[in-house]
């Protein structure tokens, strides 16, 4: 931890530092930066030509002195300029909603190429990508990568500060290096190529005239007079046959022929100095092989940041001291804190680091030896030293940089895979120096537009090794409605283990922030309030093996511009979550550990908006999922959104960040939620019938409090699924949202309460219970050990089976009995055996029942519709 004196100094300096340089400017992004780029005229791929790119990689030359911009979708060098690197605008940089980065202000543009394939096919540069279909709401430009048969981006190698792009063109494998050289007293921009396999048969695009002007061939060189022609750019092609230079339709290209290595040189001068420019263009260094740059190279991020973690016991003691010192000490709260079974340890992230890297944690996973790898929203990956129980020493090293929003990270076969907005990148450390040298394009088939809000989130793997992630819709800067659409907006994707394909498995998601994949391949997602999302929800896709039909949930676009309109039936997610309980949810995790108390097999979900962790209570009636959430009494240091169990210590780790609409106050945080063996009494199961609700707990309740009907209340409301931004709460008898008097919730009478003999479940008698979107069970209960039980369960009732069928036609995911059996981790008793047995028994009963009766639910999710 930072010593107190330094803390004070930092505190006093902070405002001054803020004034000095915004942190997005101060950050060292490394040799390149991936993003969506505007051109120098502020246009995007949707409305502009020239150096626009949805998936650009801007190579930094020198100390932000020049830039070569490569577009991985079109496999084209989109532009090159000197006079600065980038103007860093947009959501991850200055927080702006809308703009994207572009060339530095006052940049000297040497060349630009228009969006479209960077390499020719059959002698032409025609764009083979189809336009999105679906109506006026869709983008009017092609989206996604060009077909691999034309060209395919494979990845990039780093060697020191040099960035070598690797891609295929037809059957050929090509390396390309953009650079700035000094030639005849003038800075020239160059592109060096090496064909490392196959035969290169295509032409490479060298320049277009997006601002008008003219170009001509003379003496084996090309002269480009862009715009008004005050400047001339002379293009030479050392190592290639100048006869390969072609100008067609104001577009300059080169068919390099058989050369294994060649270069393209761009020299710029005032039109009157054409001869000087020609001399500089011709005089650059001879082309050389690029292969030596693909073996790694000198490290860039050699400094290690050493920190000390904080164990939950320390925070616990501090809180106890505060409570004891209070003017009205609350003995119950003190007892509760002392008996807490889960403690939150803090794994300090390197907030202060030599690179001014912005520590907004977007994804976490574990490397051999319980080392954490995390990615950041600003595109970094950092790796820790092995974490032990004490956290006395936590060292961090920067492993990778320049990624396009690292909002998901998964270690697969020992390699870090990072989900960016542009692609899944597989990182390899070729020379074993602790830094990634190869950034492979694992898959970049996802379509994106320049919209600021269509983030890609999370990265999960199912037991078969398939990968999953999800992507939001292009929410307008105001929050309502959508920008131009792609079929990939608001979707969950699945990729086979080799990443060779990208399939949409569900659509209709608005603005999620995370998902989960369970131990049996269960795929879940959350979503956040806005157009067509009345309040947050948590959803589980139909069980694995079922054909997943799109749309599974809701369609992202609103009715006003989607044709045909989406199904108007209100969807039935697992649970709607009221706005005051969670305003912005994160990802989910399933408890897979035997060492985390009595919750194995259950689902957890994170709230980014409330910096909170929730336990999910699940129930299934026919094919219909339903359930609820309970907030766990734990504190976190930021907007947690990535929960993961470590396979090395069996404890839960969570990471998250501060963006917007969150109560997070720290940029980012990583915590370990550690089970300490004390007794756990949490609501864990729900069983709904038309006679009432059975709530199961993981431990025995205090009979006096649990038998008292006054300690329970039930409050219900619906919400309206519409194109409005969110919905008011609607009383059960409200006709619609127009009725102002119908706004609010309806108290529902509980006729009686019955405590089970084992004191681990209560039955709340509510005759005539009906389906409802939001149902809140309020509790004022104590566990047998005197500690408090969480005071509210928020759940959704999609279907209400008759009480007579209970036990036969519905399954609380893990029964209360199984849940309350002590787990191995808690007491040494192999509780999981009992639990697993009950799950199997329940599943068998379920299958028999379903074969006989079919779905007793709404029918809309059963495939019978």
């Amino acid at each position, binding site marked *: 931890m*930072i010593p107190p004196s330094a803390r004070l100094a*930092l*505190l*006093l300096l*902070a*405002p001054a530092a*803020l004034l000095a340089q915004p*942190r997005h400017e101060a950050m060292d992004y490394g040799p390149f930066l991936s993003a969506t780029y505007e051109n120098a005229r502020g246009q995007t791929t949707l409305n502009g030509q020239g150096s626009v790119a949805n998936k650009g990689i801007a190579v930094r030359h020198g100390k932000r002195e020049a830039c070569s911009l490569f577009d991985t979708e079109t496999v084209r060098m989109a532009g090159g300029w000197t006079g600065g690197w980038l103007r860093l605008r947009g959501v991850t940089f*200055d*927080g*702006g*909603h809308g703009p994207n980065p572009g060339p530095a202000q006052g940049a000297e543009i040497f060349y630009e190429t228009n969006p479209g394939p960077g390499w020719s096919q059959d002698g032409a540069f025609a764009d083979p990508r189809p336009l999105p279909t679906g109506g006026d709401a869709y983008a009017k430009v092609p989206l996604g990568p060009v077909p691999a048969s034309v060209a395919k981006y494979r990845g990039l190698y780093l060697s020191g500060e040099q960035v070598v792009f690797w891609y295929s063109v037809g059957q050929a494998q090509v390396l390309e290096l953009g650079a700035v050289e000094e030639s005849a007293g003038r800075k020239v921009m160059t592109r060096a190529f090496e064909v490392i396999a196959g035969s290169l048969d295509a032409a490479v695009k060298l320049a277009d005239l997006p601002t008008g002007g003219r170009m001509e061939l003379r003496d084996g060189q090309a002269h480009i007079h862009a715009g008004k022609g005050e400047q001339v750019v002379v293009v030479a092609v050392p190592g290639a046959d100048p006869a390969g230079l072609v100008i067609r339709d104001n577009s300059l290209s080169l068919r390099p022929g058989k050369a294994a290595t060649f270069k393209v040189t761009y020299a710029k001068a005032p039109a009157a100095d054409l001869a000087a420019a020609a001399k500089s263009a011709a005089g650059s260094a001879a082309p050389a092989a690029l292969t030596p740059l693909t073996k790694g190279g000198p490290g860039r991020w050699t400094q290690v940041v050493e920190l000390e973690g904080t164990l939950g016991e320390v925070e616990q003691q501090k*809180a106890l001291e*505060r*409570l004891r010192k209070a003017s*009205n000490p*609350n003995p119950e*709260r003190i007892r509760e804190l002392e008996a807490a079974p889960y403690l939150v340890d803090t794994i300090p992230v390197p907030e202060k680091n030599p690179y001014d890297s912005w520590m907004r944690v977007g994804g976490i996973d574990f490397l051999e030896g319980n080392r954490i790898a995390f990615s950041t929203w600003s595109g970094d990956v950092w790796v820790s030293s092995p974490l032990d129980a004490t956290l006395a020493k936590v060292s961090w090293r920067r492993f990778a940089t320049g990624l396009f929003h690292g909002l998901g990270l998964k270690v697969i076969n020992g390699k870090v895979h990072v989900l960016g907005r542009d692609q899944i990148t597989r990182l390899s450390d070729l020379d074993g120096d602790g830094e990634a040298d190869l950034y492979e394009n694992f898959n970049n088939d996802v379509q994106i537009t320049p919209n600021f809000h269509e983030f890609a989130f999370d990265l999960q793997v199912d037991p078969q090794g398939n990968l999953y992630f999800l992507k939001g819709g292009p929410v307008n*800067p*105001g*929050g*309502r409605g959508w920008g131009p659409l792609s079929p990939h907006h608001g979707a969950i994707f699945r990729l086979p283990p080799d990443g060779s394909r990208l399939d949409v498995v569900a659509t209709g998601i608005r603005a999620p922030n995370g998902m989960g994949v369970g131990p049996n391949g269960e795929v879940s997602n959350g979503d956040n309030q806005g157009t067509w999302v009345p309040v947050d929800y948590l959803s589980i896709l139909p069980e694995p093996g079922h054909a997943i039909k799109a749309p599974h949930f809701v369609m992202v676009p609103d009715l006003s511009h989607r044709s045909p309109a989406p199904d108007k039936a209100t969807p039935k997610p697992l649970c709607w979550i009221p*706005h*005051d309980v969670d*305003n912005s949810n994160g990802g989910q995790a399933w408890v897979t550990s035997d060492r985390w108390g009595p919750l194995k097999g259950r689902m957890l979900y994170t709230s980014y*908006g*409330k910096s909170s962790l929730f336990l999910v209570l699940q129930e299934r009636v026919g094919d219909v999922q339903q359930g609820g959430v309970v907030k766990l009494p734990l*504190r*976190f*240091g*930021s907007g947690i959104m990535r929960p993961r169990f470590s396979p090395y210590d069996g404890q839960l780790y969570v990471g998250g960040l*501060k963006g*917007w*609409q*969150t*109560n*997070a*106050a*720290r940029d980012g*945080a990583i915590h370990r939620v550690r089970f300490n063996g004390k007794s756990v009494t949490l609501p864990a199961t729900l069983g709904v019938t038309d006679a009432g609700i059975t709530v199961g707990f993981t431990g025995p309740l205090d009979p006096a409090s649990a038998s*008292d*009907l*006054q*300690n*329970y*209340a039930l*409050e219900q409301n619906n919400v309206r699924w519409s194109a*409005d931004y969110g919905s*008011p709460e609607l009383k059960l008898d409200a006709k619609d*949202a*127009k*009725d*102002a*008097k119908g*706004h*609010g919730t309806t108290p529902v009478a509980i006729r009686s309460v019955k405590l089970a003999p084992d004191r681990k479940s209560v039955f709340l008698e509510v005759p005539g219970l009906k389906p409802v979107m939001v149902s809140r069970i*309020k*509790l*004022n209960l104590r566990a047998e050990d005197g500690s408090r039980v969480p*005071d509210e369960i928020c759940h959704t009732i999609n279907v209400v089976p008759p009480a007579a069928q209970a036990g036969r036609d519905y399954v609380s995911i893990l029964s209360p009995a199984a849940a309350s059996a002590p787990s191995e981790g808690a007491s040494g008793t192999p509780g999981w055996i009992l639990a697993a047995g009950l799950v199997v028994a329940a599943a068998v009963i379920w299958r028999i029942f379903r074969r006989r009766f079919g779905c007793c639910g709404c029918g809309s999710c059963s495939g019978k519709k």
Partner: protein
Amino acid sequence: MPRFRLALTLALSLASLPAATETGLALELSSGGKVDARRDRLAALHVPAGQPPSVFLPAGPFKARWEGVLVSDLRMEVRFHATHNGQAAVTLNGRKVLEGAEGKEVTLNKGDNSLVVEYASPAQGDATFRLDWSSRAFPREPVPPDALRHDPAKVAPGMALREGRLLFAQLRCAQCHLGPDKVPAAGQGMPELAQSAPILANYGERMREGYLAAWIQDPHHFRPGTLMPRVFPAGKDGAIDPRAADLAAFLVSQGKPAPEPAFTPEQAAKGAALFANLGCLACHGQPDAPKAAAERLPLAHVAAKWHGAALVDYLRDPAKNHPSSRMPNFRLSLDEASQLAAYLLASAKGSLSAAPKGDPAKGAALLASSGCLDCHANAPVGNHPSLADTLAKGWDKGCVADGPAARGKGLDFALAPAQIAALRAFSKTDFSSLRADVPAEFALRQITELRCVQCHEHDGRAAPIVGLKDEAAALRAKAPAPAEGDPIPDGRIPPLTWLGEKLRPEWSAAFIAGELADKPRYWMTHRMPGYAAHAKGLAEGLSHQHGFPVADPQAPAVDAEAAGQGETLLGQAGGFNCIQCHPVSSRPATGAFEAPATNLATATKRLREPFYARWMLAPTRVDPLTKMPKYADEEGQTQLTDVLDGEAQAQFKALWEHLRTVK
């Protein structure tokens, strides 16, 4: 608005209703050996030195006793806190749970808990009382009105007296029935006594003769609840009395209309959108609505009533010819007023009964003889019985008769039976209440009179305007769609519930009066209109309702060290990143969704510090629908553990100190 108060009055008169059905508490006040009772929203009051606690009581030391139930949705532990400068006690379910300032932890039952709150004022000086509560689930806050219920029967007599008193003032009884011994001179005592009827000038420029004749004949037909009485008896089948036509003819002989403006369909379409966007539709039905919706004043006869240019002028300054008009000033531009007029005139299709040809000369004579000038010129010329005479005879004939038979020469105010009963109850008092003014009660009345609650959520009651979204969307449909950056329709109008605690009265008075150039929520199309004549009293009264004096205690000098820490806490790095949603002075919000939050440069001028402090700790306790995040946990800690030991209150105080320095 006699009819709009009908529901309340009826409810109050139904003493047989089960107990504890109404929001708020029954407040019994006693001073000088007298007792009075009324409904109160909260267990809170502020009575400045020398002022009475109730208009029906003398000034001086007093006792207050609030009674009702506190409703809890389940059994829970709470603690009461009282801020006061006298003696105070709280009794819950028959047990004394607070004496002095701090109570012990007590358990609330699920459902109703009987609550008695007692306060005795100091012998002299200001009297202040506020009741708060806290629990493990929420920090200290005033006990909210929607958790309180009372039995309306307990306050029915006192509320009926108030109803009668208000009717006496608003119907301007004392204009005709003079009673200088009982009714104070203009500008003294009850503010509503100073309300005036419209000025009878320039009608020829403004209104059409046919409408005026029909209006004079039967004002209640055109505007249910109007204070204007019917002067001439109802004709057969709605026939208009020739005297009404004569009066109309005289009125329109005063001035000539300006040429009719040539409004365009485009203007009308924009006007329809404005009607929705500004919030006009909260109080007025659409001009072409087949039937006036309940509680929304009809506009079907606007075209029959107004000359176009005059309507534009009226919309821009409704008080010009009627200083007491409840129609507020929306500070419309000429374009906006023209668009609204275009829409109203094009869509109002209400027809009129044909009036006989009026004689202006006869009308001029009638103006005096039929009593118009009594109210419209504050010049009683009629030969009316004095107030004392009417009281001596009893209020069961004349204007307050039960029906036409007993009305005699009295005017027809279309009074409901409960209103007549209220007037009669008031007649039994000594009328000294007319000389008194209690701002807290004035504000309570004006919230209803000015129809604030049509747009603002209040004490847990949703505002009707939120149910009009579809109607608003249909009105907007024909107008050009708003461009990016234009104000947003259907934004959330701030609830009124806590206004008296939240806003500094000098700021809210200026804001309600429409005197502030900067609109705090400038991104909303809804526009808070100006109520210049009522603003000061409203601001003062709301403040008193919440137990706060108008003037805040003198703030100490800015704590520079705290302000420095506050600057960091405001920012992105090491702070709460307030600047992401909130503009600060001229610096825009860095990344606001939909719309920015309020400009923090005005926060310390706008907000009371105690309100700010509790708002910061638990924003959704104040407004469950707010987007403002809750940074403090239940232990009062924030995530910023390395600043001020993570103590939320200290951090928020530091932020406040910094905001005090922002220009």
